[in-house]
């Protein structure tokens, strides 16, 4: 009897540390975010008083909607770039070639470089006055005046490019892991049948890649929505809010405007969007398992 009782408790004891950690690390902050969003709040005093959903009104202002639009462009272009570049590089590195191991190691460097460092590095490389790229292009007589990479109209494409540079290694690693599991006999068989490279990709490679590609894309999308440090260091949201991402908006509201309530209201919106992505990912995984 005693043994039976202890066996019943045992699993709960094992998951207890995780539950405690979950409560402190996730549930408590999440509860606070919801609480702060419902009233006048700031970091120093916390929640002060209920304000009839006033914080959520900011989400309908043209100022915020512009940030949302900028974020949408950043996420769509960034993720598309990561998927395309990731797939191309993964396919290339899957082919037998000399120094393949070295190349595989090199491509993951952008992923392991801390975001803050990467942002500072790119800011200097792309600087219109002192940047390496402008100096190189000028020396090669390819340009007569410096290119302003972080200027009016160019800042957003530039930070998207840096995002693609940062995110592509994750896609490469994920896809290469799958590419190596494609049985060689199937590839040989389709080649013997006279299939073209496109047909081989369409009927063999892509079906194998699809589940991981879907999951990796959703993860990258969720990460990209939350990007803050890289863009903040490179442009601080400028010029004139052209790179003002929602994550920067959250920071500015909390620490510049001392308006934690609105900051949390924006955070809830991001939470919902990322939650939907997570749900789609979960459904996708279930479908793959069922298949």
């Amino acid at each position, binding site marked *: 009897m005693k043994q039976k009782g202890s066996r019943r408790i045992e699993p709960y004891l094992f998951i207890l540390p995780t539950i405690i950690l979950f409560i402190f690390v996730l549930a408590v902050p999440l509860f606070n975010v919801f609480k702060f969003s419902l009233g006048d709040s700031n970091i120093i*005093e916390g929640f002060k008083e209920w304000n009839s959903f006033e914080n959520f009104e900011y989400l309908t202002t043209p100022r915020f909607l512009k940030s949302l639009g900028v974020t949408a462009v950043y996420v769509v272009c960034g993720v598309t770039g990561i998927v395309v570049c990731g797939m191309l590089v993964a396919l290339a590195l899957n082919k037998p070639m000399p120094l393949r191991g070295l190349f595989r190691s090199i491509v993951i460097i952008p992923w392991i470089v801390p975001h803050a460092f990467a942002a500072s590095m790119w800011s200097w490389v792309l*600087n*219109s006055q002192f940047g390496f790229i402008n100096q190189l292009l000028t020396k090669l007589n390819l340009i007569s005046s*410096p290119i302003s990479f972080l200027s*009016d109209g160019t800042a957003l494409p530039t930070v998207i490019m840096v995002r693609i540079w940062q995110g592509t290694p994750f896609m490469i690693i994920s896809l290469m892991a799958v590419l190596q599991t494609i049985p060689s006999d199937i590839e040989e068989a389709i080649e013997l049948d006279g299939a073209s490279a496109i047909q081989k990709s369409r009927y063999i490679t892509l079906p194998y890649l699809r589940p991981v590609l879907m999951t990796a894309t959703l993860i990258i999308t969720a990460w990209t929505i939350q990007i803050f440090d890289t863009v903040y260091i490179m442009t601080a949201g400028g*010029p*004139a809010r052209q790179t003002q991402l929602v994550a920067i908006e959250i920071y500015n509201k909390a620490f510049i*405007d001392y308006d934690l309530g609105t900051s949390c209201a924006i955070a809830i919106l991001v939470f919902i969007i990322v939650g939907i992505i997570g749900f789609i990912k979960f459904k996708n995984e279930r479908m793959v398992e069922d298949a």
Partner: protein
Amino acid sequence: MKKISWRKMLSCLLAAGMVTVMAAACGSDSGDSGADQASSAEEETVTITFMRTGTPEVLHEIFDPIIESFEEEYPNIKVDMQDLGWSDAETTLQVMASSQTLPDVMYHLPVSIFDMADKGLIEDLTSYMDDELKEDIYPSLLEAGQYDGKQYMIPCGALTLLYWYNTELFEQAGLDPDNPPATWDEFLAAAKAISENTDAAGIAMYGMPSGGETSFFFESLFASEIGGETWDGERYTYEYDENRQAAIDTLEFIQELTQYSQGAVEETSRFDIRTMLRDGTVGMALDAVNMANQIQDGLDSGQFRVAQIPAGASGKQMSAVNVGGFFIPTNSEHKEEAWTFLRYLMNTDNQKAHSTYGSIPILKSEAETYDTSDPYWGTIIKSVEDSVPEGVCPKTNSLWNLTGEQLQLLMMNNQDAETTLDNIIAGHEEIYNE
């Protein structure tokens, strides 16, 4: 081998634990007579914490000797200096304030200090200040540390906007380095002459990041245009409505200057323009005293010079003054000792040492130690004498951010001066009413 049951092991551990506790208790009882005297002497010694935002290595070089001499003079007060870099200062400060763990004496900027003062977290230092200190601090700086009629901050670091120029490029452009431009028209003409007659751009301009730096630039020129304060310190609003045309003229002047600049102004920071002036890629720059660190050799050799910013319509060469200072939080348990230390820091010699970190003189007695016949010091001291306090209130960060964004649009030629001013006024109105 004989197995020891877990019950036996547990009882042994408990017994060992009890013995340890008893031994510790006896230990604390025994030998009291000698230790008591030492501990009572220790009890009288108070340790206060001190934090100065900035680069720790440089700050320790300045403050360690000051703290050492302070501790010699006040043997019952020990000072524990803690470090805080600028990059994470704002977030750390707010977290410390929320947990009531702010150090006994701290340096920071008035926006945060006044916001915390609004929440009752900052000690009003009005009654602590002696007349000698009040009279020694320049009036505009003293005023910049006041909020709601109370002295929450003792200014100890300040910046005015100064005019730096390259004498060699001046000569190449056919300008007289001994007679630098004193009005906006002359300034624009000089910028044009340098742009057209040399390989350098006329003036270094910066628009990134949007916020305090560019707002300060605009506010200083606006002060010079109207010849006085740009900020209503009672209503906590800018004086744009009352001086609408002057504000438009100031914005137009900024836009005109941009055409003689290095270009890509919106991606250029205040730090970048220092390098540009040093390297001779621009002929002139409007920047704070921090510029001197970058061009010190050139200043010594005469390649670079500094003057007061040119005068607007008022004819007064004046700038706004941006101030940082010391404060004592209400959570301090040693306010008297904290004030004793703060006051010590404000002694002429100590403040002079502190100013080497990058500040114009704060104290009149400090200014007297410099040779005002030296054009460099003469200009710098005149700039603080003629300055007006920069407008600051708890909402200033938001106001600056909005102004900075509008200035970026202006400098990118995406909108004219009038639209810029209208947007600034409308945006500020929304912030005032929040």
